[in-house]
């Protein structure tokens, strides 16, 4: 039956990956009960993830396609599926109506970023990205039912995202005028009539996506949004939204950097932004007093490493960027999923002694921390290694330094976190609750843990990333 489903889905894979979650969103809103809505949402998300994985597997082994888009679409779809399965544990955080809307919005976020990764032209990328972003804003605002601070966070997101979308629109215009086409695949090979306009346009588009991905120092909205949004909203923001936006950025950069007339400038800008994000994100993570904000700022640092890898402009660099994107997604799932499992306990000093009180959640969070540190045999280590290797190979010694700095900062703030979980004694009773539906988060946490553990046997992942990067390079002049 599974085979039949795949056979039916294959000719329309791209459409299904985008449309299935949207259809699921509509059905979820119409469902009479919140649990039924969750079931519908989870099934649609899983179906989209399966189709996306199959699409990526066939596309990456076949050659001649949009490698980054295929790889990242599968990644985003899987993250969305993990988040939506885990939503079953968190429905009690909303009223019955709000829960259905939250599930529908989460599906729209996943669909939007998948669409941005599959769209062949910039207008499609823009529309899909806006869909995802506005759904994210609404999802955060919905958390305002329990904590009104989420409304303020949503306002911040809307303001920042609105400016970003205006810049994106202007960027589209500049690219259209400078390059003569809005097709992404044409960028590397086409003769660019006005390189200045084109480079500015690409810069604006990348800046807009960077803002939505939470890349520092453009991440003005991150603190309020992650800090006050509920567990599910922050999980979707981090594991789907940030990963999707960053993947879209890498995809656009992957087409722009090989273009001879504008590539060098784009690469330099990305490299600078990446370095700034590593530094600022790491510093803010060190100062974070809230688990979700720590995850968000650590994500900004990781995003910076992804940008530096992409800016290298080599096949090895793009492959390293994709591996790190995977690592970032895995860490976001375990840190934010683990945070969601803890309910209202988010302040770091309240996590003291969690290793005894909630051993599985603590273990998942610790594993995420180890991956952020770049501990050997985790996927985070593999990503850092690939970046250092690619940087040394390209003579970008500072890139290797940035990766090391990110790891060292990770040792500091994650080491402190792990010390709180296992060494310090609990100051307060754990109020995690005994809701049996909390187990619905287990698959997501296990998926995240498994993804981090891929550091032990990453052959498949490395081959996929290398194939994706090779496809991008095949299209370059």
């Amino acid at each position, binding site marked *: 039956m599974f085979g039949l489903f795949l056979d039916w889905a294959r000719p329309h894979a791209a459409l299904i990956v985008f449309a299935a979650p949207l259809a699921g969103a509509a059905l979820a809103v119409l469902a009479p009960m919140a649990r039924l809505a969750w079931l519908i949402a989870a099934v649609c998300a899983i179906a989209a993830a399966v189709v996306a994985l199959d699409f990526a597997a066939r596309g990456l082994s076949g050659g001649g396609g949009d490698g980054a888009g295929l790889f990242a679409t599968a990644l985003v779809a899987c993250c969305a599926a993990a988040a939506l399965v885990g939503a079953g544990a968190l429905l009690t955080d909303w009223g019955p109506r709000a829960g259905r809307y939250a599930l529908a919005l989460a599906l729209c976020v996943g669909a939007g970023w998948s669409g941005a990764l599959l769209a062949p032209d910039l207008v499609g990328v823009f*529309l899909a990205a806006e869909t995802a972003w506005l759904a994210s804003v609404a999802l955060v*605002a919905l958390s305002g039912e329990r904590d009104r*601070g989420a409304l*303020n966070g949503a306002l911040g997101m809307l303001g920042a995202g*609105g400016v970003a979308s205006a810049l994106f629109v202007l960027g589209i*215009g500049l690219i259209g005028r400078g390059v003569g086409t*809005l097709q992404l695949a044409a960028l590397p090979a086409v003769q660019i009539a006005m390189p200045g306009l084109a480079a500015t346009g690409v810069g604006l588009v990348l800046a807009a996506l960077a803002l939505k991905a939470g890349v520092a120092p453009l991440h003005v909205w991150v603190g309020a949004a992650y800090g006050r949004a509920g567990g599910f909203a922050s999980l979707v923001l981090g594991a789907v939204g940030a990963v999707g936006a960053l993947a879209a950025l890498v995809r656009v950069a992957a087409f722009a950097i090989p273009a001879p007339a504008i590539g060098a400038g784009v690469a330099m800008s990305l490299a600078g932004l990446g370095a700034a994000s590593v530094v600022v994100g790491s510093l803010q993570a060190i100062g974070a007093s809230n688990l979700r904000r720590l995850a968000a700022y650590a994500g900004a640092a990781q995003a910076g490493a992804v940008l530096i890898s992409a800016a290298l402009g080599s096949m090895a660099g793009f492959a390293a960027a994709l591996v790190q994107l995977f690592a970032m997604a895995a860490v976001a799932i375990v840190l934010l999923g683990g945070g969601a499992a803890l309910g209202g306990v988010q302040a770091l000093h309240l996590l003291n002694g969690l290793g005894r009180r909630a051993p599985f959640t603590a273990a998942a969070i610790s594993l995420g921390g180890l991956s952020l540190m770049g501990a050997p045999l985790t996927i985070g280590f593999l990503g850092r290694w690939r970046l250092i290797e690619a940087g040394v190979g390209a003579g970008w010694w500072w890139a290797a330094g940035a990766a090391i700095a990110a790891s060292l900062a990770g040792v500091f703030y994650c080491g402190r976190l792990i010390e709180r979980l296992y060494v310090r004694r609990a100051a307060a009773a754990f109020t995690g609750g005994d809701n049996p539906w909390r187990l619905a988060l287990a698959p997501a946490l296990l998926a995240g843990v498994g993804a981090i553990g891929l550091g032990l046997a990453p052959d498949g992942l490395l081959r996929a990333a290398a194939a994706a990067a090779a496809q991008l390079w095949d299209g370059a002049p």
Partner: protein
Amino acid sequence: MAPDGILLAGAVALLMAGAVTAWTSANVTKRIAALALAQIGALAGLSALGAPSAASVAGIVAAFAQLTLGVALIVRLQETYNSVEAPELDAADALSESQSQNKLGDA
């Protein structure tokens, strides 16, 4: 300077003015209005650059969606905080965050 160039310059100026106001204004309603202004500037820029109509339509749709969401947020903020002044919202949030941390710490 060609008319298109003047229009583009004006559009960029409008966009920047809207962006700065959206980030710095203390009143939430003014922020949303400034956002709309920035979007209008971006669309005007698109027009000046001769972008295809699909891009303009996409921009208009996005702007409209943002405006709608913005207005809904203004209403919810007014209902929840009894204010739409950003400093008051931030102060209320800071107070409630520290109160909730103390409550959990005392539990």
